[in-house]
């Protein structure tokens, strides 16, 4: 699903790249946002779904991202990859979502919490115990670790792109991915052994 939508002008006078489309949106051709929406809606939805575990909230968040893209379109410089810019907006939308949900808790406390799980429609996973275990293990990771794993494993962002997104060094991201995977492995094994319900 995560095709590289950012072919440069040099390599392809093909379908417009994400950057070309976003520059058009910035310059007033807002209808071009429809193409970016079609390219990214599923990716963003799954990003939010894996962070929140809540389908309705994830759909709202996808909408919120595109509202913000229009709101901040004038600030798009086009000198970094579009997907990094888009996921910066997505991360901020998610943080604001957490703030609204738990106003009494500090952001750090919210980040430490597991997602509030709606009764998950079982259809997608119920016949797949392994997928269910992995999902539960992922949900038990603190949000920061889950977020970095989701970006790296499912959104196919490169380490340097995640570093740019989070404003940290690449080495820091490598260490965080390593720790998150180790924690996930431990939680998965615990769940598999039935030690944690």
């Amino acid at each position, binding site marked *: *699903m995560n095709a590289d939508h950012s072919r440069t002008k040099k390599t*392809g*006078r*093909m*379908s*417009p790249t994400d950057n070309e489309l976003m520059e058009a949106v910035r*310059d*007033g*051709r*807002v*209808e071009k*946002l*429809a*193409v970016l*929406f*079609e390219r990214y*809606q*599923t990716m963003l*939805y*799954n990003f939010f*779904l*894996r962070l929140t575990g809540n*389908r309705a909230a*994830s*759909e709202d968040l*996808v*909408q919120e991202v*595109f*509202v913000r893209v*229009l709101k901040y379109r004038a600030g798009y*410089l*086009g*000198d970094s990859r579009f997907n990094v810019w888009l996921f910066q907006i997505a991360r901020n939308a998610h943080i604001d979502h957490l703030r609204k949900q738990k106003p009494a808790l500090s952001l750090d406390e919210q980040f430490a919490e597991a997602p509030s799980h709606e009764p998950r429609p079982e259809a*997608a*996973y119920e016949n*797949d115990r*392994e*997928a269910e275990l*992995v*999902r539960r293990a*992922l949900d038990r990771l603190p949000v920061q670790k889950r977020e970095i*794993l989701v970006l*790296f*494993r*499912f959104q196919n962002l*490169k*380490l340097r792109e995640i570093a740019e997104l989070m404003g940290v060094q690449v*080495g820091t*991201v*490598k*260490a965080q*991915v*390593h720790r998150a*995977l*180790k924690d*996930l*492995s431990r939680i*998965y094994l615990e769940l598999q052994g039935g030690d944690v319900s």
Partner: protein
Amino acid sequence: MTCEKTQEKFADYLTGDLDETGRGEVRKHILDCAACREDLEDLTVVWAKLGVLPEEQPGSAVRSRFYAMLEDYKAVQPSRPKSQWTDWFTFRRPAFAASFSAALLLLGIGAGWLMTGGGQGGPRYASLSREVQDMRQQVALSLLSKPSASDRIQGVSYSTEVKNPSDTTLAALFKAVDSDPNPNVRLAAVDALYLFRDRPGVHESLVKSLSVQSYPLVQVALIDFLVEVRETRAVEALKKLIEAGELTPEVKKRAEQGLKQITL
């Protein structure tokens, strides 16, 4: 290599982004280090397990809400806001940077031309320019007839660089809009034709195309085009489309809005 240095490479090792030298270093280290070997085995297992999570599709309401939001936004914005003239004087805009470089280059060429007693070569320059235009046109036509969709999109792109395309080139673009099997080519051809919207036959061709398109993005692009040029001949075609009841809710809504906009 130390355990710390080795573990730094694990993330790239898992995604396959580590080069052969790096992979060799990791393999060499884990041969002698049981802890790192076990660590990497665990990570590899959990990495693979994450792959079993299926990707889900958002509900159709997401698309409806997005298109409604976009329409609302467009309704309150001027259709093509003119940029401030001062915006052009900033190097943040690649277009300005490129134009500025091109202007400097032209200035240099012009100066050299005048200094060498130029001024006689006007017709020759015009002839050269025509040749370049003809060449682009031929390349565009050739690419538009290729079996590969990416070639055909490239052909569409070439056609946009032709200042005054021939009727043959326009006909190739009409054909691409109507019958290219790839929707991205059709979409690119609609965009290209916007540049030639003042040429006779363009509006009529795109009005006709409305009745043969079934891909929502192309339908929306056609509707946007016809609304933008206020093509009243599209009214009947839009009404028929809406009545036929085969449009997605988003396209139907866009067609209804377009109908209102054209007849305003």
